[in-house]
């Protein structure tokens, strides 16, 4: 009897302790939100909704609007996904299905090593290696022959939205790659063999298996990569050109929300500081919306996949 009540009280204590830890996490999030909101109030009062539609950023005259930063954050992240998702999924399939055993572990090890490199190193490498290569080998010829497409309009300087997108892509590849590999590993070997034994080619086998099993997982991996891309600061600010304007061309400069905070926070005061904090709040909201949207889509995909089986 005594032993059992002891057990129950231990259970009780454990439950309360874990509830406490959970509430700490919740409390921190709420506190973060509350402080950001409080500090951004002066800017919110002054500019209101015009803050997210205005494109002016003038610290001298204290006129602030966040649209170019929101645009830059979203466009650079989407560019990164467009490059990183096909690359990582293709690489994951190769490593798991086609690569000879001696190649598997070095390739995946190197890919995962990419995740361990600090972002400031990526930024430096971006300035000194990636940007000159992109500029001379891709952007200059592209603008020469395809310059009539607004997307590729010059002049070409180097630091640009495209450079930021490519650099972000390289940074998020290891995340998407390793999660995609985990997802591929969950496919039962017998199912793959079943497709092959019915006379399916390897391509058909992969198409069926990935279509049936892996789309939700790959989608989840993509969202993980997107989350990282949205918040990336140092590497982006070093190659994006830091110009608060909206251009149709990806060869032109841009600015991201995280970058402007990192750039101007230390020396800002008054309304500028408040506006920067408001951008921080918006960045939090953008991330939240993207994640919630992704969750919703994910559950729909999962439901559809479940019906398909």
């Amino acid at each position: 009897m005594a032993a059992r009540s002891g057990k129950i009280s231990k259970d009780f204590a454990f439950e309360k302790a874990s509830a406490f830890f959970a509430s700490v996490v919740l409390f921190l999030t709420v506190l973060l939100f509350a402080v950001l909101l409080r500090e951004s109030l002066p800017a919110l009062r002054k500019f209101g909704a015009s803050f997210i539609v205005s494109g002016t950023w003038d610290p001298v005259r204290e006129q602030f609007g966040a649209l170019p930063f929101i645009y830059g954050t979203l466009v650079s992240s989407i560019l990164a996904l467009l490059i990183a998702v096909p690359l990582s999924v293709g690489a994951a399939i190769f490593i798991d299905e086609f690569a000879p055993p001696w190649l598997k572990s070095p390739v995946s090890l190197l890919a995962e090593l990419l995740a361990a490199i600090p972002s400031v190193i990526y930024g430096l490498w971006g300035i000194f290696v990636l940007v000159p290569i992109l500029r001379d080998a891709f952007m200059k010829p592209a603008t020469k022959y395809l310059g009539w497409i607004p997307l590729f309009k010059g002049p070409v300087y180097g630091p640009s939205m495209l450079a930021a997108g490519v650099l972000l892509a390289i940074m998020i590849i290891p995340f998407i790659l390793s999660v995609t590999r985990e997802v591929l590993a969950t496919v039962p070997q017998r199912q793959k063999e079943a497709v092959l034994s019915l006379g399916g080619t390897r391509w058909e086998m992969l198409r069926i298996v990935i279509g049936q099993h892996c789309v939700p997982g790959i989608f989840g991996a993509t969202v993980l990569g997107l989350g990282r891309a949205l918040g990336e600061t140092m590497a982006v600010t070093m190659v994006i050109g830091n110009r608060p304007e909206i251009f149709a061309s990806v060869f032109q400069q841009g600015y991201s929300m995280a970058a402007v905070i990192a750039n101007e926070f230390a020396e800002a005061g008054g309304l500028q500081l408040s506006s920067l904090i408001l951008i921080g709040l918006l960045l939090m909201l953008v991330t939240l919306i993207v994640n919630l949207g992704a969750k919703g889509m994910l559950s729909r995909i999962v439901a559809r996949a479940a019906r398909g089986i």
Partner: protein
Amino acid sequence: MKRISGTSRALIAAVALSLAVVSGASAEPLMMNGAGATFPYPLYSKWFYEYSNANPGVRFNYQSIGSGGGIKQITAGTVDFGATDAPMTDEEMKKTSGPILHIPMALGAVVIVYNLDKIGTGLKLTPDLLAGIYLGKITRWNDPKIAEQNKAVTLPNADIVVAHRSDGSGTTDIFTNYLSAVNTEWRAKAGHGKSVNWPVGLGGKGNEGVAGVVKQTPGALGYVELAYAKQIKMKVAALRNRDGNFVSPTLEATSAAAAGVAKSMPDDFRVALVNAPGKDAWPIAGLTWILVYKDQKDPARGKAMVQFLKWAIKDGQKMEAALDYAALPKAVAEKVDKTLRRISFKGKSLY
């Protein structure tokens, strides 16, 4: 009553010993805390090291968090001294708990760097050309207005890629202050400050960011600190100064700018050395200051601070050139010395 066990006794002894060490610490060196500008950080580090070697009673802890941070911390009273490259505004001065003194320590210069393959250092620019380039009105290197000043060289038929700082900085403050002083259109359109709304150009974070853009981009032009340009050996432009002479940015030319305004230097030293008179004066220069409260709260700390500042404007000045800082001209140093006498504790000078 319980008997004190062996371990407890050892523990008590240890506590007593550590208390002795702590109380002994009051005879340890005085730790002066400071925070602020990054630009003079290498100079201050050298000074703190040399000064503490000569005066073991005082040590320094300096956080180079930026001028804005230095002003915030001295305002909040969390440091013994602040440091800044841009003088405090009247509004900022009102927020402090007492009168603040700006003590000039050194001079910095902002220089124009560029990346043109076939053209060496010393490209000649006038104030209007520079403003025109930063306003986006002069966009090609072979613009007749640039060519007119540089007849000896063939300028390339290429875009000028304009680079500027993306982070808020004292360097930008000095540079835009200069453009505002020499060009009315710039003053009306962009104005001056630690960060401004640039009409054109790429933003680089820090001196290294601007230098990176300029070095990596053919046809680029940007502005960085003199010390930085010297250390990484970039091509620098000569600029026409107020007296009409083309001057190359050097430490001497920077000191000449301060000498040019020495007579008209206000008593609080809150002055920008842009477009200074003098035939050899480099026109884009600025002071960097240490900020201290006039009325010190602790006589020992206040005394240590004043002693250090006295040393810095005399012996310290000799170390500036080796680290690529321009020393204060003699007339200015003498004026600073007078200001140091005003630092006091309960109305009594600590000099």
